[in-house]
């Protein structure tokens, strides 16, 4: 762990060192889609909020595209050899946007008072925390009850945003008026929000790193229609289209325009993985041979090329290749219809029809379901496509009323944070579409998941997760479809926009515009 820290510190230092060429000033227009419900990152964590509020709020650490931690509000950190004590040294001279000093007390307040109440995803990780203390104004110590491997990955801005104690202490967090005028420590501060039109952020003149940020202001533009967003980018009205803000078919056309650059980086922390829930409880999908047949019957490469215009990577199992502890030493399901037919025959599949529920997120997902139906029908599986709007999809998946259902989820850098939740039996709970919806039960593997999460030693974890992946891939609890890639399109004269594992979310911090 000490090694890791030293190298990453070097990388981070290299990234942070200002080069002579960087130019100050200018304005960046970024599309935000859909309009966020709020900007208070401690209360709301959905995608659009993270995109905008990632400039306003900060976490103790930032993560590069290899998911290694870099200094954020903490300039250095240390992990004890037993993996139980995390000590952070905070940056000196950090101020909130309203001029108050940012101190270790704010960290203690955020991690032990505010966020446990409001942030469901972080709460699961904070359960491992015994105490958070501030021995002096620039030092914070997290003591854990038992080692928790992924703990170093929970300090990202949206995962553990720093909340100003002087504004929120003793108030009702959800109704505090300050939620409308968010106060953070970030490189940009909130200026104005014209609902349905734009969110305007301006440069934080007192930012604690000299010279940053380079930009004067950032506008997040709300444009509800996908085609209009594409046009706004073409005409130069906006400079940046973050991943997922235009239809797949448009990305190719727009990225071929002159002066337009694109990158698929900046999503490593989220590593969205798409799969189909296969109902393990009943119907043909409860037979492991049927589930394996589904994997062999699908030409996932073809679907990637045609439905996703070549963006993405066919996954080997439950862990994305971008997430830590990924292993490809597993059974590989290549396109092999004959093998699928043989498996179906062996199980004595009687032609019972199965339903596929697409994700109601637009044409791409509908086409995807049609392609799957076609592949499956070619090996003799009778398929009907179900339809539902977003609310209906939520209802059907969380009440387990489906045979096969598309979904995709973020992995947050570590299997213990974003993968095991979909496969261990303790996460089988009706009412949520994000947990172990397929109903996969394997007590032996459960033990291994739990053990792997609480190992202090990185190498031991690596081995444990490799074992888990090898086993679970043979069981096919769900049909892993694609590691999604959401290319970010931007004008080529915008430099250093995507430098971290969360991409545009904290991109404007280092971005600058070449005249």
């Amino acid at each position, binding site marked *: 762990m000490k090694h890791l820290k030293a190298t990453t510190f070097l990388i981070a230092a290299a990234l942070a060192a200002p080069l002579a060429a960087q130019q100050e000033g200018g304005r960046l227009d970024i599309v935000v889609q859909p309009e966020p419900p709020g900007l208070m990152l401690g209360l709301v964590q959905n995608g659009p909020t993270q995109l905008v509020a990632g400039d306003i709020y900060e976490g103790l650490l930032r993560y590069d595209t290899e998911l290694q931690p870099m200094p954020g509000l903490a300039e250095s950190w240390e992990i004890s050899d037993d993996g139980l004590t995390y000590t952070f040294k905070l940056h000196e001279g950090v101020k909130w946007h309203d001029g108050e000093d940012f101190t270790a007390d704010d960290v203690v307040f955020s991690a032990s008072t505010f966020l446990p109440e409001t942030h469901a995803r972080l709460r699961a990780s904070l359960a491992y925390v015994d105490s958070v203390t501030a021995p002096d104004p620039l030092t914070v110590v997290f003591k854990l009850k038992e080692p928790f491997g992924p703990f170093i990955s929970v300090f990202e801005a949206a995962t553990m945003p720093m909340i100003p104690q002087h504004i929120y202490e003793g108030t009702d967090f959800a109704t505090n008026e300050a939620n409308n005028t968010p106060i953070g420590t970030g490189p940009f501060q909130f200026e104005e929000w014209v609902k349905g039109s734009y969110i305007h952020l301006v440069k934080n003149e007192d930012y604690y790193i000299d010279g940053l940020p380079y930009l004067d202001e950032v506008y997040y533009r709300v444009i509800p229609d*996908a*085609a209009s967003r594409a046009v706004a980018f073409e005409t130069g009205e906006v400079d940046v289209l973050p991943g997922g803000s235009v*239809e797949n*078919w*448009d990305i190719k*056309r727009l990225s071929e325009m002159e002066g337009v650059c694109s990158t698929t980086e900046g999503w490593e922390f989220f590593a969205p993985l798409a799969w189909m829930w296969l109902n393990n409880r009943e119907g043909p999908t409860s037979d492991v041979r049927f589930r394996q047949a589904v994997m062999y019957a699908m030409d996932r490469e*073809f679907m990637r090329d*045609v*439905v996703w215009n070549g963006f993405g990577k066919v996954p080997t199992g439950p862990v994305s290749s971008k997430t830590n502890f990924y292993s490809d030493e597993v059974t590989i399901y290549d396109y092999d219809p004959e093998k699928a037919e043989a498996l179906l025959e062996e199980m004595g599949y009687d032609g019972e029809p199965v339903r596929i529920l*697409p994700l109601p997120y*637009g*044409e791409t997902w*509908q*086409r995807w*379901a*049609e*392609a799957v*139906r*076609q592949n499956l029908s070619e090996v003799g599986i009778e398929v*009907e*496509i*179900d*339809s539902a*709007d977003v609310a209906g999809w939520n209802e059907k998946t969380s009440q387990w009323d489906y045979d096969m259902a598309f979904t995709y989820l973020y992995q947050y850098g570590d299997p213990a944070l974003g993968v095991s939740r979909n496969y261990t039996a303790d996460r089988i709970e009706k009412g949520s579409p994000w947990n172990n919806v397929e109903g996969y039960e394997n007590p032996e593997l459960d033990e291994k998941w739990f053990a792997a999460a609480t190992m202090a030693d990185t190498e031991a974890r690596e081995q444990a997760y490799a074992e888990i992946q090898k086993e679970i891939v043979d069981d096919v609890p769900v049909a892993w479809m694609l590691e999604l890639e959401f290319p970010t399109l931007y004008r080529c004269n915008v430099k250093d926009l995507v430098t971290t594992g969360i991409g545009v979310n904290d991109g404007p911090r280092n971005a600058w515009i070449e005249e």
Partner: protein
Amino acid sequence: MSFWTRFRTNIGAMVGVVLLIAVIAIAVFAPLIFANDPWQMVQRPFLPPFSREDLLLGTDTLGRDVAAQLAYGARVSLLVGLVSTLVALLIGVPLGALAGFYGGLVDEGAMRFTEFFQTIPNFALAIVLVAIFEPTLSSITLAIAIVSWPPVARLVRAEVMSVRKREFVDAAMLAGLTKRRILVRQVLPNTLSPIIVMASLMVATAILLESSLSFLGLGDPNAMSWGYMIGAARTVIRSAWWLSFFPGVAIIITVLALNLIGEGLNDALNPHLSRRKGRA
């Protein structure tokens, strides 16, 4: 002049008949003309039309044969159009006939019920119904029938009211026929021609409604239809015009054919009307 002679001389109507027969033939013989299932991915996607002999109209976003999709789409459009019109007639004709023939409270009740449906915009009601039932071919057909029967009921009522005042109805009464027999045997047959004309136009409207629903993503996801094709092609309209163009043309041709036929029927069945029009 007989009905057929009058109809035959109407050029527009004959064009309509030819077009409609062509569409029906394509729909019926689709499996013989096209070896490919309309959902089957046969070639690379976005193949422009006329670039390959076996794929005349090109391929869609998933590499499926557009021509085959059109042919199979004709089946869905015609089926939904015909069945929903039949169902609408089955609801509208008896209701209108009863209201017009018996009058009084029956009439009041039936007409208030009809108005209740007429006050809600057709398309909005159809959307709500399909959304509640979940989109399948039968729920879409039923929804279209439910929003299109009220005009039928009102038309039949008016016709029956005027026919029942005629002398031959009085004569039938005097001859001792039961009221029900008079309504079914004497009155209704005399109201047939406007109903036929209206039905032909209703098929056209139903096809449009089905296409609009599919366009909005409320079509049966397991049935290939023209509206579905256009809806799916909407996002790529700038790079692949043919995906929305051909099904659009198909809809225009079919709806136009039905309207021409309806017009022709109207003229042929009401010679007075058409002669008047001819003189003016």
